[in-house]
């Protein structure tokens, strides 16, 4: 491909370098203004005793005290554990069900494209608006979920208090999250399964490998980078989980479903401990960022195999 004379181009219009910057600068400027500047501000605030509800009070630097307080606060460790519990179970359930569904859809039965689209619907909806409606489905006396659960288990509906029972409430949230996001994992796994070329299976067939063997030594390893990608995206999202928990339980009963985002919201917008909340926010961000980076390295290793 011969390149056209660059001099002629430069004479006729802006130079490529100027265009490149003119095109990229607006987006970067916006991100600097609305993402980076606030982040830097939050970092600054995290070293102060600032309280947003007392804008005129004297702001003092407190050094690392906010970080120290956050990291030694048992409530925050409790919230981190609750978050980890949610992230773990939602990912396990969504990956197992999502992969199984993708595997079945990949059998290409009649109408599979249509049913795939149907299955995808929940993940496009607003977690807040739909999560709010699940509160109704979970109502012990009148809710459809409690009714169905009581039909299956024989336990009276008044005792199936999905949102009010300490041992059930975390599962109430895990169920809605799984209902909503399994299609997401399914869609990515499906792409993974479809990326496996047929000739590999054909070769395995020639070698008389059993289908069980083919599944574990071809299907799973070759779809693994895709599964890992889905887990990465779900992990980051669920680490930030806020909407659904706020609307379903608000962190309750007690604090059994109080995930990190809820604790953070309470510290920032209810206790107005802006400095301490900022320190917590920075710690969360560094944690997600760090974990995601380590994970991406592992993912790249798997891809290269």
């Amino acid at each position, binding site marked *: 491909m011969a390149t*056209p004379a660059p001099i002629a*181009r430069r004479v*006729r*219009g802006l130079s*490529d370098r100027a*265009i*490149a910057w003119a*095109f*990229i600068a*607006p*987006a970067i400027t*916006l*991100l600097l203004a*609305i*993402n980076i500047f606030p982040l830097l*501000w939050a970092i600054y*605030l995290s070293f102060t005793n600032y309280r*947003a509800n007392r*804008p005129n009070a004297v702001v003092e630097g407190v050094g690392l005290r906010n970080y120290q307080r956050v990291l030694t606060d048992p409530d925050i460790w409790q919230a981190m554990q609750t978050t980890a519990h949610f992230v773990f179970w939602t990912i396990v359930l969504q990956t197992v069900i999502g992969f199984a*569904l993708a595997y*079945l859809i990949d*059998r*290409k*039965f009649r109408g*599979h494209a249509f049913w795939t689209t*149907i*299955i*995808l*619907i*929940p993940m*496009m909806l*607003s977690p*807040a*608006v*739909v999560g*709010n*409606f*699940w509160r*109704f489905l979970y109502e012990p006396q*009148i809710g*459809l979920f409690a009714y169905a659960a009581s039909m299956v288990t024989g336990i009276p*509906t008044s005792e199936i208090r999905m949102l009010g029972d300490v041992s059930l409430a975390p599962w109430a949230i895990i169920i809605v999250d799984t209902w909503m996001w399994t299609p997401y994992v399914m*869609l*990515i796994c499906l*792409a993974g399964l*479809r990326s496996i*070329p*047929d000739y590999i*299976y054909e070769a395995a067939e020639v070698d008389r490998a059993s289908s069980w063997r083919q599944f574990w030594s071809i299907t799973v390893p070759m779809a693994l980078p895709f599964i890992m*990608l889905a887990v990465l995206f779900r992990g980051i999202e669920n680490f*930030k989980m806020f*909407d659904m928990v706020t*609307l379903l339980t608000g962190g309750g009963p007690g604090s059994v479903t109080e995930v990190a*985002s809820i604790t953070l*919201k309470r510290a920032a917008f209810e206790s107005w401990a*802006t400095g301490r909340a*900022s320190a917590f926010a920075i710690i*969360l*961000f560094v944690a997600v*960022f760090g974990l995601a980076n380590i994970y991406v390295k592992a993912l790249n290793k798997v891809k290269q195999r």
Partner: protein
Amino acid sequence: MSSANTAHSVVAPSDTSKRVAGTIVIVYALITLIPLVWIFLTSIKSPPDSISYPPKIVFTPTLEGYCNLFTTRTRQTPDYIAALPEPTSTCDEVTRKRNMVIAGPSNFLPRFVNSLVIAFGSTFLAVFLGTLAAYGFSRFKVPLADDLLFFILSTRMMPPIAVAIPIYLMYRELGLSDTALGMILLYTAVNVSLAVWLLKGFIDEIPREYEEAAMIDGYTRLQAFRKVVLPQATTGIAATAIFCLIFAWNEYAFAALLTSGQAQTAPPFIPTIIGEGGQDWPAVAAGTTIFLVPILVFTILLRKQLLRGITFGAVRK
């Protein structure tokens, strides 16, 4: 990554396995649809029907939920209602049956309009800025391009509440609290990262030779961008726009923390709809239905691009 559309030979699934797979998938799909069907059914139930036990599947449909969604009502004595002139609308009629009269419009419509303005405004801006930046990254040697792109993506990893703290303070200083403009700017910033990543993928797929040929024919770089690249990228731009729109439409955390009155969008409003004696579930269901229908339509339009959108273009199929 190519989809394996080649004919299966020895590896084609047998008819039985297809049938079993199909049955399981269809059963799963139908079960996951139940909550959505229930939202719609509840929206056309009367309040007593909606909370009856056992849950009613057969009932007389009514528009009461939709009427209650759009209006505020006050209780009146039967004598007062009997003395009123003939009802002029269906809503008048169903309201009077409950010994109430319509007092005025509710806040739902303005909240819904806010959602529309904020979602479309931020989508337009994000796609506009995103297209320019994506073209820049796709076609030119930008120093530190990979770092910049990763930086753009990393802004999505922050928990929304963490972002909301300084934004709250900043908007308070700038007078942007509880304004549509503030929300549009915020959603644009969140969406621009998605837009850049998706659109860069789409533009990468348009052969450079097209523009180069156009420039040999005398087009400037900008003309080539406008007349050659943009038309080629239409599908990608449309898909990106829908993803941005859906994000802004569905967003709850920022909206709940940063808006309270005039700029409040529908997601934080819908859960607050209450009637006499607690949550008015048919009205909530009606609001939810109206809110979800556009997304359903978009999901069906987008189904071929979904995978790309949800993985930031990492999986292109």
